[in-house]
């Protein structure tokens, strides 16, 4: 009997997510950069002003969305590059697991930073 593998996401669906996250990231990063212009650039990077940004809930959500979008897009890009290096199932499954794990770890660590800076956890 032929072994049938369950496909969670088709490659076209993954690539659709890849392109959507790229376009969305362009938008949120543009907003993030434009926020540096509301006051002199050097002042906007001062400790107090950065902390104020984190305390602003909509801005914290914007930072969270940048983190999620860039992590998904970047790690899928890395997976695509690594897929071409070798063509065997162990390698393919290994890099899929590695990139998903790394993506989750980065998002978790970044979210933790945003929550701590926002003082929601306090």
């Amino acid at each position, binding site marked *: 009997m032929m072994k049938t593998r369950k496909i969670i996401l088709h490659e*076209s669906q993954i690539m659709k997510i890849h392109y959507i996250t790229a376009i969305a990231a362009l938008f949120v990063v543009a907003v993030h950069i434009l926020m540096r212009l509301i006051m002199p650039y050097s002042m906007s990077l001062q400790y107090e002003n950065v902390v104020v940004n984190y305390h602003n809930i909509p801005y914290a959500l914007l930072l969270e969305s940048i983190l999620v979008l860039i992590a998904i897009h970047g790690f899928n890009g890395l997976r695509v590059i690594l897929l*071409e290096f070798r063509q065997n199932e162990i390698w393919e499954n290994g890099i899929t697991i590695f990139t998903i794990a790394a993506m989750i770890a980065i998002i978790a660590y970044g979210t933790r930073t945003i929550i701590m800076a926002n003082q929601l956890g306090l």
Partner: protein
Amino acid sequence: MKEIIKKIGMIKNGNRKDDNNRKEILRNNVVVKVFRANRSKGDFVSYDSFEVPVQRWTTVLEALLYAKSYLDSSIGIRYSCRMASCGSCGMKINGIPRLACYTKISELEGSTITCEPLANFPLIRDLVTDFSQFFNHHKKMQPYIHNENSVMTDSKKLIEFKQSVEEVDKYLQFSYCIKCGLCYSACPTVATDTKFPGPQALSQAYRYYADTRDNDTKERLNIVDEKHGIWRCHFAGSCSTVCPKGVDPALGIQLLRGHLMGFSKNEKKIAKLHNRSTS
């Protein structure tokens, strides 16, 4: 590989600039430098040079056949039709994948013509390469019409499909493919990813997908929608540049991607069936 892509790009740009007044270099003799190696014997790669008399219309294949006939009969070449129909004599000529029978020596620069086997194909001997993997990718695309409404076994039940000119136009250029393997050889993704079907197979997938006589749309999309499938194309475009038949595989790949992404309409109008006995 980067060097080949650069050379292909230069040719592409050069062709655009002076396509109408392309320079012809007339010479009496050229040196044909031929790649020599026998894979089964584990030979080291070497190049043999042969001085060949040429005329204005002499092709690279004719020069090689002259060398094989009069100078060294052991040169390994694969050829058949000598008129760019069979796709047998594909090789790298001065570093670029071309058909030897379709390349005139007078169009090439320099007094030495270097002939090498196609890249991305396993070598058999000298200029002959193994096309097994290439044809396997082609077969995987199921290059035939899927339509359960057409009965091919019973001659009484034979029916014909009617297609409009516009419907034929959608896939016509892709049906000119002669499977010479030049696009496969020029593809930078195939060079690194052996599971990638290559531009030829993917453009054939689009050719049958776009054909209104075929009604197995979903199955066709599933074949190419995998880890090493259509999404691994980097869109270098070298496949379209080297094609001797004017096929644009890169276009076929992008069109098929559009259908997979849902940008292009997936609802295909299936050709009408007409019973021969009634029409």
